[in-house]
């Protein structure tokens, strides 16, 4: 079946079999291998992408369901080579060790900050509870998200001042 979707800002057209998940098509057909498969049944969050502004487990979405939708994957988080504040904060806070869960966490965090721009620690933990990390114990991830939120808040405040 033919699927048309906006992926990382670009209108794409691709073929997908009805049984294929969006995760499989992203990785195998579109060669966007930044989104990872950890469990295939929606329990680890490694496959998290943003669809129409909401975080979803791409292993639970059929590729054909992406027809007409807007999708953002980890490959679309940075602007060219300029890192998103979340990516920068993750690096500074050492919020990754093996890095496998990192794309999923970054996308889930971006969706969170889109919904709650200044989350509390509890809110961060609650919204990231669907993303498993086995290496870090979550401490530095939570700190990184809070740091990014603060930087984004400061950047917005500066914009408002200069506007």
């Amino acid at each position, binding site marked *: 079946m033919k699927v048309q979707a906006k992926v990382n800002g670009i209108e794409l057209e691709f073929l997908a*079999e009805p*049984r*294929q998940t969006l995760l*499989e098509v992203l*990785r*195998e057909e579109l*060669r*966007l*291998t*930044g*989104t*990872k*498969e*950890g*469990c*295939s*049944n929606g*329990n*680890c969050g*490694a496959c998290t992408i943003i669809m129409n502004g909401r975080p979803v487990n791409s292993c639970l979405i059929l590729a054909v369901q992406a027809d007409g939708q807007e999708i953002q*994957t*980890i*490959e679309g*988080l*940075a602007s060219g080579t300029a*890192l998103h504040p979340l*990516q920068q904060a*993750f*690096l*500074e*806070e*050492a919020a*990754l*060790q*093996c*890095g*496998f*869960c*990192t794309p999923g966490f*970054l996308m889930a965090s971006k969706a969170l900050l889109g919904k709650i721009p200044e989350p509390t*620690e509890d809110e*961060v*933990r*609650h919204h*990231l*509870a*669907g*993303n*498993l*990390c*086995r*290496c*870090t*114990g*979550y*401490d*530095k*991830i*939570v*700190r990184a998200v809070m740091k990014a939120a603060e930087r984004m808040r400061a950047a917005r405040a500066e914009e408002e001042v200069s506007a």
Partner: protein
Amino acid sequence: MAKTEYRVIGTRPIRPDGYGKVTGRDQYAADVILPGMLYAKILRSPHPHAIIKKIDVSKALAHPSVLAVCTGEDFPHISSSAKIDTGEESIDARHMTALAMAAGKVVYKGQAVAAVACASFAEAEEALKLIEVEYEPLPVVDDIEAAMREDAPLIHGDMYTVSLSGSGSRPSNIASHVSYEGGDVEAGFAEADVIVEREFRTRMVHQGYIEPQSATVWAHPDGRMTVWTSTQGAWQIRSQMATIFQVPVGRIRVIPMEIGGGFGGKFTPYVAPVAAVLSRKTGRPVKATMKRSEVFQATGPGSAAIIRVKMGAKKDGTLVAAKAFLAYDAGAFPGSPVGSACVIGFSPYKIPNFKIDGYDVVTNHPRVKAYRAPGGTPVGMAVETVIDELAERLGMDPIDFRMKNAVEPGDRMINEVQYNSIGFKQVLEAVKSHPHYSAPLEGQHVGRGVACGFWPNGGGTSTVHLSFNGDGTVNLIEGSTDIGGSRASMAMIVAEELGIDVEDVRPFVADTDTLGYNDGTGGSRVTYSTGVAVYRACQDAIQKLKARAAVLLEVDEGSVEFSDGVFRAGGKEIRTKEVIAKLNKTGGPFESVGVSGRLGRAPSFSASLVDVAVDPETGKVQIKRWTQFQDVGKAIHPSYAEGQLQGGAVQGIGWGLSEEYVFRDGHMLNPSFLDYRMPTALDVPMIDTVLIEVPASDGPYGVRGVGEASIVPPPAALANAIYRAVGVRMTELPMSPERVWRAVAAKAAAEGGEVAHGKAG
């Protein structure tokens, strides 16, 4: 190495591979895509124990979508029971092949029986249904006690119990018996004023790496093969593949991709051998990736254990005797970490009289593998809660009790190996003086617990190269797969020693064809052993750079001195970066090599301090505060050292509160992340860390291995906290809500009262 102030060591630069990880650019094993690549899918035994009577692959072979089929017959028959050192353990070569694919018999549910290669994964999944296997089920050995009974069904008819005093005379499911004895344990107990004796049961757990096992193999017409895989040890995978296929190691090139977690579970080729057979048959690259349920059932989890501990102390707190029985579940083939466990549990304490017996027991479960401080967590639960109880009965503070018996440099472990520089007392002092230790604890059913841990840390061998670029930067080629940020630390050592910026050092992880031998990433050895290799390479480079500096400064080589990144002679000076940039002008390029080996140990002691609130109506344990302590020798990159403490602590929390394989007749009932419950961000608070730095005897900057000691104490610390919260001593792991609730209810019933009501906290 005596300096305590460093320019780069101890700072927190961004890791050099970080950009690739936060942009999704870095390639992990399942990301490999090669021209003409095929996909493999493995057919797995539905029976935990059965004879394979017949495999009929004819329908699969005839199907147009199937390009090749593999069964156990496709692997060389290995007759000798020669043991192979995999770098983590030694395993019988025949067992190694059986882990890749069964032949004749299956001994755990999920064991590979056949496989197909197709052009797509979906076709491969469908094609498996065309393979017909006839099994004759055999009686299942589902737990340690059943396995140890005299009349137990035998899993391997040719297995006899091995011990240091010889082999047993009757076949048995007990693969080996280790024993340690010192002093006179009965006389010791006779001197004790207080004795505590308890039995503990812990369950099988999984390392839980988020990235499933994956390998792509391409067999070449000249008999060689290339393996792209997720592994902690490329050279170890190479030697195991060479053993399985009975070829010289040089025929196999293993390229380690970025790895999505290992924790000891990625030293064995689980899917690469099958992919290799299919690639040989088709001439095309074949990718084999496990699904999560396969990871749970067909890789190497951490052992379940039954542990009985009896310890005695005098009323002044001096330990006088310890007796212990440890039986660890090895799974379907011998090789549990019971030998380590016997030593690790008692390592922190001076015990004059002891008798420790450990049994390695086979069952019809997946064959276990190392899981971060292998063997340590179950025995830590046992010993550290018994110690807590002894201290309580004597009215002593738990840290004071430990301090009284703490090992010091020069003391001997129960295997007689002598401690060199260790920092256990310093860890204990750090715990006692930490604000968390004396902070007020408010609320109902709250409690604070502490426990300690130990890991000897590995040494082993590493090889590294330094090469130099015309822009003054340095390439560091090393062979230690980076699972925790070690690349960053190694680059920092080069920057420190050569006096250049860490951004000017570019580390790479090489493969088995492009670098000399390296032991694997594990056993807490990389920061130490690879660090030593890097340090030595730097010293070699400095000598060679001195000669080049002499040319540029137009002085005698002998008059050049080097310090802090500057070469000086005759009142003139030149910085390292400039000397490197001008190598081609002063004699041409060179490389520096560093090798480490035959290193003394650099052991680590750790401690977990936790505050919990327990809801007696549900048994739910909420962690309110956690502080993790460890002697790391020297934290090269403190953020990544902290990360090891935090990661190990949270794995320990899962082991302690929620993770377990639920077996029924050899079938795992919960092979998914939904029901195998690992901690999420909601289950844990911030994990505060305290890095203690007692320099190790050998190694640059006094650095120690850091990765493992943190997973040993958490369950015991939680158990000790739960005791103070609701008055029950837990002896089973995990301390799930149901188990805690039952213990609380049983205590209430015994005391003739009702279960306490009211919310915890």
